[in-house]
């Protein structure tokens, strides 16, 4: 999964000088690219094999069961997008399918619409219903969200009964005319091939989507929500896009079922269908291309064997979900990929290849100088309290443009809270923050980020399955145009953006001085110290004016710390202002011009490091001195 999404960037690999370690990796990447190609070939074979189904069975009942297979696969692939890639626990796909199925049936039987209008309208209605059910996800999180979406499945049957005049109530809706397009009734086999075509289209385009810039957004939404916002990604927009994209294939599946069986019954869209889709996705491997197909295969086979309404189905599904979730916590595909693709890499300790920083620094555009205010940052009277606890009590300080400033203070003095206020994660109770001369009050995190403010987190927030370089690329997608269609079709624009993204991330990768050998490794194999450096890379790749670093030295060794210091100086040379929260004084003294001391929610002292230290700072440093480790 992590390695899949690199195909788009592979064209660029060859202008990278290969060290022996990355030579080995290039070999590995080849095999990954091969496995992707193999996957595509297998997918085409599978679809072709399925396409021969009308030859195997002549009865329209037999063929209808194959249509069911196709429809369920469609829905599972849709579920995989929202649950597997975006991490949103939506369990309402039977509702979407059911509403679309009923809409198709009602438009046909009650209103007598021709299929050419009824079909797309029904998909639209189903999508709208899905959006309505999923909308609480903008606010409600975790398993509360799982529950309200899942229980939406219980809400549909009583509504169908109430609307019996149109829906046929408990008896179901029958008398639907055969699908007629352009005046000719489609034979069963044509309907099946059409459904299969839809499946192929959806599978292909959603796979493209997950490998596009949107794929970065989705995984960031799943794994690193705050970091996503801090790089400028609008999570609400991302969620809405995913909701629509997952609803459309599910609605298509519902419509297909209606025209295939020419009957709509509520039993088909119950909790058991949800369970089958959920089990299929979880078992196969959420967030992988093949996961939903691999996971659904045994379940569909079981349903063929015991019959779709047999209680043995539910037993099998339940046990499958239970055992699958425990034995393959990340799904069969992830287990397979671990076996086949990933080499056994021990966590890599950093041995940065010493590149000359200045050589690559010009790869980044210097931050714009068309500034109006001499201060990049002005904090004025900022207060914040949680319950009765006053964390910040009127913080005041200013930061000159292009400066590197250290924010110090004892634990619990409010440094992290202040950083969260500065990056808009928290709204101050009083006072305001001016960045680049503009008041940031009321600005959501992602909008502030887009004005050129980057940050890192105390606990690094990264997409663990992504490689180092992909995590750095994450800092760039927010600035890209939405271009959803291009992402779905893997169009020219998307491929161009992917190349540009990769190129820019590559120069940042070299700038931050990570060893070449970790470039394409999933960050989950990196040490904590290296993860922090990756976060710095993600924060600076988009050329911010100001970056806020939260304890970047924690977990770094002397060598790494030294390099980080040099990097920050380089960034300063490029016109980026740096505010760094850190406990390591010798690090701060070596890179900062100015120190700001925060004590119990107030700035008690600001001092330039090249001048004699004022009393409070000396007192603080003396207090800290015994705790500090020995340093050269």
């Amino acid at each position, binding site marked *: 999964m992590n390695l899949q999404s690199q195909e788009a960037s592979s064209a660029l690999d060859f202008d990278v000088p290969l060290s022996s370690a990355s030579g080995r990796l290039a070999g590995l990447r080849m095999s990954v690219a091969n496995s992707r190609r193999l996957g595509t070939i297998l997918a085409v074979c599978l679809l072709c094999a399925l396409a021969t189904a009308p030859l195997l069975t002549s009865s329209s009942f037999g063929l209808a069961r194959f249509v069911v297979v196709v429809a369920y696969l469609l829905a599972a692939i849709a579920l995989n997008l929202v649950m597997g890639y975006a991490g949103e626990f939506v369990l309402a796909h039977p509702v979407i399918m059911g509403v679309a199925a009923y809409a198709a049936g009602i438009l046909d039987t009650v209103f007598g619409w021709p299929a050419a209008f009824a079909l797309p309208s029904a998909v639209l209605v189903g999508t709208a219903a899905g959006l309505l059910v999923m909308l609480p996800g903008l606010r409600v999180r975790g398993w509360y969200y799982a529950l309200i979406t899942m229980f939406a499945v219980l809400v549909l049957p*009583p509504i169908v009964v109430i609307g019996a005049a149109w829906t046929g109530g408990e008896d179901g809706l029958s008398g639907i005319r055969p699908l007629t397009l352009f005046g000719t009734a489609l034979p069963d086999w044509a309907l099946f091939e059409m459904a299969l075509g839809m499946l192929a289209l959806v599978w292909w385009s959603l796979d493209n989507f997950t490998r596009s810039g949107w794929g970065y957004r989705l995984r960031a939404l799943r794994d690193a929500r705050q970091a996503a916002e801090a790089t400028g990604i609008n999570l609400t927009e991302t969620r809405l896009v995913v909701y629509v994209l997952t609803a459309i294939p599910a609605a298509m599946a519902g419509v297909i079922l209606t025209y295939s069986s020419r009957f709509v019954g509520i039993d088909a869209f119950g*909790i058991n269908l949800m369970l089958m889709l959920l089990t299929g996705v979880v078992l196969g491997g959420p967030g992988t291309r093949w996961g939903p197909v691999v996971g659904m295969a045994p379940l569909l086979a079981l349903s063929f064997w015991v019959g779709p309404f047999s209680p043995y189905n539910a037993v099998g599904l*339940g046990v499958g979900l239970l055992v699958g979730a425990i034995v393959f916590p990340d799904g069969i595909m992830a287990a397979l990929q671990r076996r086949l693709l990933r080499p056994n890499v021990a966590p890599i300790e950093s041995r940065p290849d010493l590149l000359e920083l200045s050589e690559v620094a010009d790869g980044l555009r210097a931050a714009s100088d068309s500034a109006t205010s001499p201060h990049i940052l002005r904090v004025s009277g900022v207060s914040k309290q949680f319950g009765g606890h006053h964390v910040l009590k009127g913080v005041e300080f200013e930061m000159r443009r292009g400066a590197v400033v250290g924010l110090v203070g004892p634990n619990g003095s409010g440094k992290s809270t202040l950083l969260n206020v500065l990056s808009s994660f928290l709204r101050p109770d009083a006072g305001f923050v001016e960045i680049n001369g503009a008041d940031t009050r009321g600005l959501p995190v992602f909008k502030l980020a887009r004005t050129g403010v980057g940050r890192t987190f105390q606990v690094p927030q990264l997409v663990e399955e992504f490689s180092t370089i992909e995590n750095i690329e994450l800092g760039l997608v927010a600035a890209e145009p939405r271009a959803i269609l291009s992402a779905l079709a893997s169009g020219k624009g998307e491929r161009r953006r992917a190349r540009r993204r990769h190129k820019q991330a590559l120069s940042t990768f070299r700038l931050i001085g990570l060893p070449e050998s970790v470039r394409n490794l999933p960050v989950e194999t990196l040490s904590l110290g290296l993860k922090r450096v990756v976060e710095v890379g993600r924060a600076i790749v988009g050329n911010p004016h100001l970056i806020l670093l939260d304890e970047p030295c924690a977990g770094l060794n002397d060598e790494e710390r030294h390099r980080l210091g040099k990097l920050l100086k380089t960034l300063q040379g490029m016109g980026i202002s740096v505010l760094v929260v850190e406990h390591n004084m010798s690090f701060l003294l070596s890179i900062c011009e100015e120190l700001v001391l925060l004590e119990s929610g107030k700035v008690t002292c600001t001092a330039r490091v090249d001048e004699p230290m004022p009393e409070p700072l000396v007192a603080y440093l003396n207090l800290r001195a015994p705790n500090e480790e020995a340093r050269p």
Partner: protein
Amino acid sequence: MTFTALMLGVVTGLAFASMFVLISTSLTLVVAASGVFNFAQGTLVMAGAVLAYLLGVNLGWPILAVVAALVGIGVLGGLITYFVAVWPAMGRSRSFAHTAILTTIGLGTAANALVALVFGGEAWVVPSYVTDTPVHAGSVPIRPIYIVMIVAGAGLTILVDRIIRRTALGNIFRATLEDPEGALLMGIDTRKVVTLSFAVAGGLSALAGFLMAPVINASAYSAQELGFLGFAGMAIGGFGSFPGALAGGVIVGLFYGIVPVFLDPHLAVPILWAVVIAVLMLRPMGLLGTAGLFGSARSREI
């Protein structure tokens, strides 16, 4: 007439409410101790109702024996849930709560289907445990079984609340959930606490099923709806809060009792679902819930 109808709805609602409070409380108990929302809880409620029929009506056991047996089976069911679906999932994946949702859904579904397979899927009618001659309160006729439900439900809820308040259990839950390792270091056997919560919740759920059996025509397929109603009470009332479970359960019960009086009875579940969403949209932690569980300051996303 309308007033009588409304009061009838209120009484019916309160009777159901006392049962939903019981189910919400058992869900809350498990969430409080382990952070797991147990999807299989509805199955245990259903099991209580089904056993009330099988043992009490089919086999003709005396009522106390039936209660003892089904509470025992409920406890056993709770323990099975813990040892089959929850304990093995610990430490297996990045998100334990996430995996536990899946495993308990799986277990619940398999169990429901097994009950349907073994005992059939039809709805069982359990005769009332007390006389069916209505008691009159003014103009309002009240079924005595409703009074039994209200008294038993309220009594059990108060008992659980007392035990948690009186003993250190509330603090132990909080410590176990917030910082399992810290709790271990403090000498709390966290595993025992979690196991116990599953067992007690199982017993309570089965009992709720038993008490409800005469008024709901339970079948193997009613587990999901019962689970939903318990969840609705918990969600409306508040995340991990016992007073919340009480308030939420009462609200759900009243809706459940009163909606059919004035509207199409089929609207009860859709309306409740809309209410749950409305409450969660306005207050994502429910009416009485706080950011963290059990009034703790630290919010954690589950």
